[in-house]
């Protein structure tokens, strides 16, 4: 169990902790090494686990109360005077409640503010629509200067939180609410912002996923290989922006079929980012994006919601099988009817 980057956090611990708990621990460790780190939350210090940092460094932690707009403005001010603010609230509030403050105060001025947004996607299941963030990736992706990361599990969360300190400028890390299944057994897989990870090689079809869906993608790929004899490549696209064009183009050339899966609206998130790369390449490829089909999500336990939207193991198996029946068309087959 190797300590990461001089931190006492270990892979072993990640097994027993949620993404948020891991984040709280890693940030507390980073706080020891970097006195510039300050923490901010909006009455969600406990829920987002930034409170762990707050307990260790009360003089460097500010709970702004339930007032997200002010929180982002204050973060901008702290960054202006050379500090390194970490801001945590639920993703729905980080990306929407205060978005113009994030966009204009933080991103426009390209300030060094790190946003660790928890309860991403539909992970706060029974809290319902007001607490689901199915638009966050789309909104954040459209703001210049900010980088956007969706870690697959607790190990990757720890690595992403450490890595974001190394880059200058705003970074948004979207994590889940609860016990996201463990994807990585080691932290030595070369995590790098902007560099996708191939979880499994394959030649028939490529599945691209992010966040908690990655675990299911790997499970589904194994089932498809075993039961259908299909060779499925699985890519963990943990960084949505900047997107790893190379990994997408390689998958396009080598498998000619790509399906994206995400806990997000199919508009504007991972699927859109991947499809933009495909479309601009000018090459043909059978492609589907799976996620929330542009509707407000009902409440329910997260596993039920993932099942309903076909982003769990069963759903991914079903959707990949569907895509395999669908060939990309060769030019000579095109009919000029629209």
């Amino acid at each position, binding site marked *: 169990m190797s300590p990461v980057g001089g931190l006492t956090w270990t892979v072993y611990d990640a097994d027993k902790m949620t993404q948020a708990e891991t984040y709280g621990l890693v940030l507390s460790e980073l706080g020891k090494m970097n006195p510039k780190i300050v923490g901010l939350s909006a*009455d*969600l210090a406990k829920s987002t686990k930034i*409170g762990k940092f707050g307990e260790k460094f009360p003089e460097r932690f500010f*709970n702004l109360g339930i007032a997200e707009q002010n929180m982002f403005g204050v973060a901008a001010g702290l960054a202006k005077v050379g500090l390194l603010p970490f801001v945590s609230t639920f993703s729905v509030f980080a990306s929407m409640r205060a978005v113009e403050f994030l966009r204009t105060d933080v991103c426009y001025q390209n300030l060094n503010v790190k946003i660790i947004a928890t309860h991403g996607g539909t992970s706060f299941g029974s809290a319902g*629509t007001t607490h689901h963030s199915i638009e966050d990736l789309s909104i954040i992706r459209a703001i210049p200067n900010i980088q956007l990361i969706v870690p697959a599990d607790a190990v990757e969360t720890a690595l992403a939180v450490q890595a974001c300190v190394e880059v200058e400028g705003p970074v948004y890390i979207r994590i889940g609410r609860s016990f996201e299944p463990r994807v990585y057994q080691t932290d030595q897989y070369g995590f790098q912002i902007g560099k996708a990870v191939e979880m499994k090689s394959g030649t028939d079809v490529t599945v691209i996923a992010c966040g908690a869906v990655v675990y299911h993608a790997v499970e589904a790929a194994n089932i498809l290989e075993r039961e259908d004899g299909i060779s499925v490549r699985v890519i963990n696209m943990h960084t949505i922006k900047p997107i790893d064009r190379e990994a997408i183009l390689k998958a396009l050339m080598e498998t000619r079929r790509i399906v994206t899966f995400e806990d997000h609206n199919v508009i504007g998130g991972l699927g859109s980012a991947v499809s933009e790369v495909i479309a601009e390449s000018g090459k043909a490829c059978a492609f589907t994006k799976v996620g929330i089909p542009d509707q407000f999500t009902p*409440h329910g336990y997260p596993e039920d*919601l993932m099942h309903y939207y076909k982003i769990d193991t069963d759903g991914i198996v079903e959707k990949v099988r569907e895509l395999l029946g669908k060939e990309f068309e060769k030019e000579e087959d095109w009919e000029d009817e629209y």
Partner: protein
Amino acid sequence: MPLTEQEHKELKTIAKKIRKDIVDVTHWSGGSHIGGSLSMVDFMVVLYWKYMRIDPKNPSWEDRDRLVLSKGHGGVGHAVILANRGYFDFELLKEFNQFGSAFGMHLDSKKATGVEASTGSMGHGLSQALGMALGARVLKKDWKIYAVLGDGECNEGSIWESAMAANHYKTSNLIGFLDRNHMMIDGPTESVMSLEPIDKKWEAFGWYTQVINGHDMVQICDAIDKALTHNGGPSMIICDTIKGKGVDFMENNPAWHYGGLNAEQAEKAKLSIDKMYPDVP
């Protein structure tokens, strides 16, 4: 109208049942915002059973009064109250929180009968209530609009935007209830983000402001009567309450903002509620 003794007894009986039902739904559902639901029961019961002009069998009746739960995380309390008031079958709450149910932690006005606005993100409900109050003016209706706010919720700047506008437009038909339970998620309001003097703040924003014991139904009725006759602008009734009221191990404990109850804890909670009402069968 002041409370008669008979009425008081009836309303207390209802409030006791509602507190126990909230405990049950929390037990069935795996978890709910129970603390802030228990704190608002008494004034909600007075409103729904004594003051509001409503017809639960005709929830979209145009001439009804409207209540917006701005502190939308009180969904479990609101749902139990609506069920007991006859808007829908209480049995439906057995599936609270589950996929496919019309009811979850934050109520959806498109699904839950009797819910006037989909809330849950703090600091939205008062604006919507103000919109309804102004709408009544445009449409020449005599509706009363009630808005229920959390004290932590008053950290949100948007609350004060609507406070300013309500005074500007002198919406006397808008009556706010501030569930002043002194707690939010991360701890007591005064240690997370101090609000005091909260009454002076509302007053300074032009609201006719009263501070009462939010568990005393006599005081609640008295305050509503005064607010209803005040016609110089909006009213705020600051209800001093106890988060988790009725369940001894939850009272004033921020850890019970949100939580689940196993069968044993639920039984204990109900015994505690019995003790709160020695004179109610």
